[in-house]
């Protein structure tokens, strides 16, 4: 399986990640090599095999629906790029 430049651009858009135009060819090559490696999986017979989503086959533990954290908005927003009145600021979405 190989990818072309437009495939890589599409994947980068899905990941919301800008790629430097001058680096795209290198990504095309690198991703193609990685996919060639991954393609070795095709040879494995997995028809009767269940997928393994947890290494110990354990069920997800759930906790009670109780408040356990105190309000730490202030402490958490100290590291935010831009906040105002406790809200995170981003460029205007709706005109």
């Amino acid at each position: 399986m190989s990818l072309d430049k437009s495939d890589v651009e599409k994947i980068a858009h899905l990941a919301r990640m800008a790629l430097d135009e001058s680096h795209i060819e290198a990504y095309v090559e690198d991703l193609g090599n990685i996919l060639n490696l991954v393609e070795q999986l095709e040879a494995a017979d997995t028809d009767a095999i269940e997928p393994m989503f947890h290494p110990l086959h354990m069920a997800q533990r759930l906790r009670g629906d109780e408040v356990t954290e105190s309000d730490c908005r202030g402490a958490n927003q100290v590291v935010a790029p831009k906040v105002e009145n406790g809200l995170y600021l981003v460029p205007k979405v709706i005109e």
Partner: protein
Amino acid sequence: MHSKSIAELGAAMRAGEFTSVELTRHFIDRIDRLNGELNALITATPEQALAEAEAADRAIQSGKAGPLTGIPLVQKDIFCTRGVKTSCGSRMLDNFVSPYDATVVERLKQAGAVSLGKANMDEFAMGSSNETSYYGPVRNPWDRGRVPGGSSGGSAAAVAARLAAAATGTDTGGSIRQPAALCGITGLKPTYGRVSRYGMIAFASSLDQAGPMTRSAEDAALMLQAMAGFDPKDSTCADQAVPDYSAMLNDSLQGLKIGLPREYFYEGLDSDVTASIEEAIDLYKQLGAEVVEISLPNSGLAVPTYYVVAPAECSSNLSRFDGVRFGYRCDDPKDLEDLYKRTRGEGFGAEVKRRILIGTYALSAGYYDAYYLKAQKTRHLISDDFKHAFETVDVIMGPTAPTPAFALGEKVDDPVTMYLNDIYTIATNLAGLPGISIPVRAVDGLPVGLQIIGNYFNEGKLLNAAHRYQSETDWHRQIPEGFA
């Protein structure tokens, strides 16, 4: 002082030979003098370390000291540390000061350990050479032209160069064991769920596990004792009792059944490394162990399986880095999409981008079954190989890495060649099993690691086997030139 084990340091401090403040100053001085040539630490925290050492000295004086009280160590920069920069080796988090402590950090603090600072690492723990760090590569103390391994390369180099008594690391595909092997130290990846992942910046959540990186198995037992155990803050943390690891160290190895997977001794393995591993296994025979050849027939699927599962989970986990709530934000975004795209494009390095792209592709509409679902099935095959093996053997042994440390820059332009460095370590992460790497006979002055893999929650047996070897040999006591 810096060549003493954790147990020796603890005993000396309790006997009043020196204080934790004196010991901590000694390590701070070594970091000041020696870190420049290694780049093992991203952030040093000498003031905080001395304050913690003073508290440790008070605990020692009042007879309340535990085995880690006053012991100076470094934390891999993947662990959130309250009030201290937590970069994860990335430009994305270069400005991030964590508002909280990871459970591992909290537990080591409670045990009285002193944190000297934060260790360098591959960006977001993605790499096998520590060359993907935003803060530059770490150099191997045994040969400064070579890599220390990765991703916990700073932790491994710091322990090998005696810049700290011990370190924490994390291991998603070999990131504790491979750098431990390349730097000549002891590194343990516990069973998935043995140690809490809370506050450990997530790369691949079904594979990531934290563990100790130390100079000996004896020290690793003390570290793991403090790190392991149930944590309600991590829903994947195992609710299993933690045994007394130190009490098991000297158990007899008489009758221990060691499996040697024939797939781990293939033609790509360096012949000098093979000889070192075989010599170590001969010593185990002299200690009463029985050696049998076994087969892990699906071993060849481990690397390709990993390079679907890990990037898929990474692309999901790293979607949180969007320039909105914390971390890097690009300048002058023209709209929200531009903010996301340029923040992530500028904040992540090349290897992280490659993995996000592969993961995004593998999870995208129309490809999920062919890649992610298929890989979760081959993962099951790999796991079943181990299950069958552990029906007849107690532990599995083999090399940790196919070669000793390679040169800086040698593999950095070829991702797939770099990935094959983890050919022996990745399968245990996919299966969730514990594994340890210990130094055996060096090759041309470069350390070689023996990997011992155990059954689920059998860390005690791994530490026992490692300790018995280290009681008979002194490879773990070797100090690189210039750091004695």
